[in-house]
């Protein structure tokens, strides 16, 4: 009974001034929609970062020359690693599944009158498995070709398209430094990873790359794939460190002349970055929800002022402070709750529209609406109704009945 009366009076009061109520509800709708869509954008971005980072291999360890200084990795300070180091890692460390030495350098690739500048990587045949690459067509080179310094190349899809357009590259030859290389395979595309494009590259056997293209006898990195056992990455990293210190004859009190980077650390970093981003975006949405709440407070104050006589009458016939407080809180929660529900719909709609709109604009955004974020937004919007409705409602409840009855 009490509730029916509350609902009727509350709805009447809100419907009596439809435009004003609509504007207040709109404030909440926009706020909640902003929270939902921003959280969805954050979660989507976090997921896509994680997907991309993981696609490089979660069990990947990268050994690079140079010291891990206070300001991060200082690479290139000393070129101390050799293919023998890579072989030793493969042979002596338990828990290692695959190893590949890596050398690289930017090179011009030519096919008749077309040419493209790309990174040429000298790697072992295991590199594709380590880095989660797959062959789209053709084949990978084998260890026999590596041993005899075969002039064969596997191209990234972008590189292949740059040189061959829609023609079949496999079986053709491209020129690197004026020397012919037989294209034996093309990689499947992975998508841009932000800091480097794995689709634009050429892979050749490391032996060929070192002797005939780059002319180096030191390697740039050793890529190691661990067997993925629980805590295995850290064990393998420690073993590699001990092995290389020994091989490089580093005295006990000196720093490493190399560093081992564990990919799972990067994944953790990416995940925490994604979470930070989500919080940041969610807070931006939260600010608009706050503004919506202030809008509610504004109309509730106006409503209380307009209904002073009503409040006076209610108090005269026996309404306690609690009754009046409940009445006005109910109304503000009604506004914020309706706004919240509609805001969820709009927010989900916006979250679904963002990737499509971004594609139209040529960029790539993904969004992910999580059930948690909907509950959060609904809860917060009701909370906003209580928080911003409380002061006006308290003001109404505290009105002096004598003054209120006399109010014109």
């Amino acid at each position, binding site marked *: 009974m009490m509730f029916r009366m509350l609902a009727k009076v509350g709805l009447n009061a809100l419907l009596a001034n439809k435009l004003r109520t609509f504007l207040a509800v709109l404030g909440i709708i926009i706020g909640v929609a902003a929270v939902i869509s921003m959280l969805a954008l954050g979660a989507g971005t976090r997921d896509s970062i994680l997907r991309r980072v993981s696609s490089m291999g979660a069990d990947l360890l990268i050994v690079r020359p140079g010291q891990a200084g206070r300001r991060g990795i200082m690479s290139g300070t000393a070129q101390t690693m050799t293919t023998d180091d890579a072989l030793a890692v493969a042979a002596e460390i338990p828990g290692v599944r695959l190893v590949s030495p890596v050398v690289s350098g930017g090179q011009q690739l030519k096919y008749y009158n077309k040419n493209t500048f790309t990174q040429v990587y000298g790697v072992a045949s295991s590199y594709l498995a380590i880095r989660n690459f797959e062959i789209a067509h053709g084949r990978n080179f084998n260890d026999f070709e590596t041993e005899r310094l075969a002039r064969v190349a596997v191209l990234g899809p972008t590189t292949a398209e740059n040189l061959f357009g829609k023609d079949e590259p496999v079986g053709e030859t491209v020129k690197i430094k004026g020397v012919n290389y037989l294209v034996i395979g093309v990689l499947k595309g992975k998508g841009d990873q932000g800091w480097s494009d794995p689709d634009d590259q050429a892979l050749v056997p490391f032996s060929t790359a070192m002797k005939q293209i780059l002319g180096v006898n030191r390697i740039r990195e050793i890529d190691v794939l661990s067997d993925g056992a629980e805590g295995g990455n850290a064990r393998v990293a420690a073993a590699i460190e001990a092995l290389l210190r020994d091989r490089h004859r580093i005295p006990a009190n000196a720093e490493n002349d190399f560093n081992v980077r564990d990919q799972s650390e990067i994944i953790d970093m990416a995940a925490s970055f994604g979470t930070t981003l989500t919080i940041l975006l969610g807070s931006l949405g939260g600010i608009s929800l706050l503004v919506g709440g202030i809008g509610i407070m504004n109309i509730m104050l106006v409503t209380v002022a307009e209904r002073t*006589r009503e409040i006076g*009458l209610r*108090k005269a016939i026996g309404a*306690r*402070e*609690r009754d009046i407080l409940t009445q006005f809180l109910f109304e503000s929660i009604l506004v914020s709750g309706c706004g919240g529900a509609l805001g969820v719909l709009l927010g989900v709609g916006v979250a679904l529209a963002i990737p499509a709109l971004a594609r139209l604009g040529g960029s790539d955004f993904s969004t992910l609406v999580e059930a948690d974020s909907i509950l959060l937004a609904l809860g917060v919007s009701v909370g906003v109704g209580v928080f911003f409705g409380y002061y006006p409602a308290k003001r109404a409840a505290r009105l*002096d009945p004598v003054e209120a009855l006399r109010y014109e």
Partner: protein
Amino acid sequence: MAIPVIDARNLRKTYRVGGQEIRALDGIDVRVEAGELIAVTGASGSGKSTLMQVLGCLDHPDGGEYFLDGEEVAKLSGDRLASIRNRKIGFVFQGFHLLPRLTARENVELPLVYAGVANPRPAAEAALERVGLSDRMNNESNQLSGGQRQRVAVARALVGSPALILADEPTGNLDSRTGAEILALFHALNAEGRTIVIVTHDPEVAKFGRRRIHVSDGKVIPEDFVAKRESTRFAASLNPELAGSP
């Protein structure tokens, strides 16, 4: 002897306006027995409104004692007073003070809702019937005429069977004919045993009380009982059927 409905002694209330003290109530004694019909009169600024607010438990006095229906209420405030008002007083105001967009019945139910009555409908319908509005129960208050609105307000005042019905200038917003009807209604309710106090500045309305309390400068001016007979004749001339016998 029965407990008086109003037993107020030495009521005092002082306002401070711009550094000046105004003694709105300067030691007023009021005693109203059950079943009385009393007119409180006085010029504007006499303290009459303050007396009405204090007697109506809308405000508490600075000093003095006030027993309403046997309960000491002078020192109560806030929600305690609200509860007293809810149980013991039915108000009728000059400006009707009905809630718009609620039906007549819902308006009358309101005091019972605040009293926590589970099903206030039958009582509200009975009260509306008593004031002659059984055919208007489901009309919203803004669809009613002034006289009908004031009847709804009277029904709201009597629905909880309060010890006291307190009417503040109940005819002030009505034309003389509907005003007279409302006064006749009060008279009839009084004849049924209701205790009614009407606060007015209008001497014509004041004549209507069976006893008069005249307030001036925050004090009560005593009046003889000649007025009583006068008022009965006056009421009877308005509506002999409703007025009943004094």
